[in-house]
């Protein structure tokens, strides 16, 4: 039982914290968002230089061989800075799918370029109507000689408009909600037959609706078993959720700090409003919610690498429930305690609130995971 970081982890934390503190203030973020891809290529290159894009990859693929704790450190710092660059879509999701599902050749081709900041990735998974069920896939992949032909529509593909490569779930067999018969395909985002409609998201990032119209994929474009990709997708979704928990923690810590600073400075009736007990108790309740979220982030981080899929799934589901609930509570309190400025675009707290709110809809909201957890028999099974 040990909650301390190793020396290497502490160094990583110091460097990413410093980068966010020095380069990622609120005004810079607004500037990055208005660049053509909706994020800063320059900052992305800096992430690469610091090795942040290499964190989870093996050394032979240009990585630094970090685990869930290293990812947590980076994601938490990015949450505090409200970073808009495609870290989740490229490194955690795309990189994770390749790491767990890709062939040696695929990994060797893509991962070093990801780590170097030269290639960005996006995960085309959600469909209209699939909601949070990873197995609900209507997009088809039809075998054609040695290769495959993709047809279908994917939605809210995070950073899908700027990504160089797409990872796509598509059905190779079975019916729409079967767990079997799902394949995972790696395609060039500019391949013929792909059309992408990009748009800004509520939380300051970008996403795309992507349609696949007879898109040809070569035999080297399928990851692993063409009918058995769901297990890899679930594993990577669990890792993504752990990273989202850490990002949320960074966001919540920042929301607490901004709020406390605000109520210590803002004066009404001749005194700082933070001297009022009604406000103090709201702030104290934020602390309680955040500490519970911190604990579950650690738990999710510890369990993200667990090989027993059922144990991992229930732990990750529990963490997402806690993050969803804490995040909603903390965000709403933070806005309320800021008063009017809390609902303005020019003040940062509202932007933290928006990102926090949208994280709940990523890979299943609190209700979704609560019912998953309950169906699976809960967290404390008979010892």
């Amino acid at each position, binding site marked *: *039982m040990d909650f301390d970081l190793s020396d290497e982890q502490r160094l990583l934390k110091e460097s990413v914290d410093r980068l966010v503190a020095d380069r990622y203030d609120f005004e810079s973020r607004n500037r990055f968002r208005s660049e053509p891809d909706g994020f800063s290529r320059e900052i992305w290159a800096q992430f690469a230089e610091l090795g942040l894009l290499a964190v989870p990859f093996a050394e032979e693929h240009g990585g630094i061989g970090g685990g869930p704790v290293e990812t947590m450190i980076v994601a938490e710092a990015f949450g505090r800075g409200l970073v808009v660059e495609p870290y989740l879509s490229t490194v955690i999701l795309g990189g994770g799918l390749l790491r767990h599902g890709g062939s040696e050749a695929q990994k060797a081709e893509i991962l070093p370029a990801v780590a170097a900041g030269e290639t960005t990735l996006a995960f085309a998974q959600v469909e209209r109507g699939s909601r949070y069920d990873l197995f609900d896939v209507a997009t088809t992949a039809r075998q054609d000689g040695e290769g495959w032909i993709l047809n279908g529509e994917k939605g809210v593909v995070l950073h899908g408009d700027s990504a160089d490569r797409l990872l796509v779930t598509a059905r190779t067999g079975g019916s729409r909600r079967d767990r079997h018969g799902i394949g995972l395909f790696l395609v060039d985002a500019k391949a013929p037959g792909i059309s992408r409609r990009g748009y800004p998201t509520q939380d300051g990032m970008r996403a795309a609706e992507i349609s696949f119209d007879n898109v040809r994929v070569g035999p080297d474009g399928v990851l692993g078993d063409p009918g058995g990709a769901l297990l890899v997708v679930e594993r990577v979704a669990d890792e993504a959720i752990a990273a989202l928990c850490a990002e949320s923690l960074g966001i919540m810590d920042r929301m607490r700090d901004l709020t406390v600073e605000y109520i210590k400075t803002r004066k009404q009736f001749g005194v700082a409003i933070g001297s009022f007990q009604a406000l103090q108790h709201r702030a104290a309740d934020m602390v309680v919610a955040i*500490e*519970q979220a911190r604990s579950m982030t650690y738990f999710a981080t510890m369990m993200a690498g667990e090989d027993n899929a059922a144990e991992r799934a229930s732990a990750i589901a529990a963490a997402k429930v806690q993050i969803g609930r804490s995040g909603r509570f903390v965000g709403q309190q933070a806005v309320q305690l800021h008063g009017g400025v809390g609902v303005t675009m020019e003040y940062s707290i509202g932007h933290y609130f928006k990102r926090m709110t949208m994280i709940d809809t990523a890979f299943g909201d609190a209700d979704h995971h*609560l019912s998953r957890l309950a169906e699976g028999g809960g967290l*404390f099974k008979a010892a």
Partner: protein
Amino acid sequence: MDLRFTPEENAFRQEVRGFFRDNLDPALRAKLVAGHHFSKQELVDWTRVLNAKGWGVPHWPVEHGGTGWTPVQQYIFLEELQAFPAPAPLAFGVNMVGPVIYTFGSEEQKTHFLPRIANMDDWWCQGFSEPGSGSDLASLKTKAVREGDHYVVNGQKTWTTLAQHADWIFCLVRTDPAAKKQEGISFLLIDMKTPGITVRPIQTIDGGVEVNEVFFDDVRVPVGNLVGQENKGWDYAKFLLGNERTNIARVGVSKERLRRIRELAAIERIGEEPMIRNPRFREKLAAVEVELKALEMTQLRVVAAERTREKGKPDPASSVLKIKGSEIQQMTTELLLDVVGPYALPYAPEPDADAHLSNEPPIGPDWASSVAPTYFNWRKVSIYGGSNEIQRQIIAKAILGL
């Protein structure tokens, strides 16, 4: 960072669990599971079993009978004790007055009292709260006036848990009425057999009697029973309350309650199905489990930080433990109430635990009778030990600097 227990810690857990299995009377365990009270003698006997094993006061310094366990081992022991469930040694002795005596007491006090606490030769109760001094404890009025070799104590204490069994009471008394309120308080040990002490029971809404009022009318206490220095009692009280808060999350208790809820929800039915299959019910249950898992990790974070924390300074995070821990304990009592349904209604005053049980069969299922009383009784947990509102004040001040 590795949040798993080491193989040695897991082996220790098995050793503790095995000892409870082999040494705790199954009938006493069954009483606890059913939510019934146990008798004074049962607790004394069990404490002596633990003490004979050397586990009576595990967290005390080794020279006073402690085990030298790491903070993690202490945590595992306590969690196992609560989750088994086995009766916890009386907190007023082992967690409250004991540490005050070995930290601030005289040599005579240490030699006389500490072994008697560990072996439960004395039953202790706590004389802090007064009718006019609840959350504002330092406003207490019970006074002690020095007359030669004695203090003469007059006043009233209240909410005195299990004073009806007590041999001794540790009291905060005012020895300097002129000083600032925190600075005129002393810490006295008082023999409950001293003339002038009257105990009056207070019945709580569950129908039980576990708290009392204690009246002091010209009670003569030898000056040798003063702990530490006169007028420094508030410092000792703060030390004591800090210790009280470290175990306030009671994770093991809630784990045991959730296990019980699952067990009973598999028996009780909604329509054709066991309650545990009802989606609404099981999601409510899962939501409490999530909070409890988070609390457990929060508790372990506090335990892990103990290595580096200054002695006697409570972690402000323990206020988080108090708030969440009490809320979760209360939620488990609500869930049990949901499970039992209409048979929560019959009111059967619990016979005195020392008296012979009657031969009358219980009304309704035999697990039902304690459920509503426990729900009613456990409203206390967000009130005692510094109410949850006081904890929010501590967080606002000590953590947020408001």
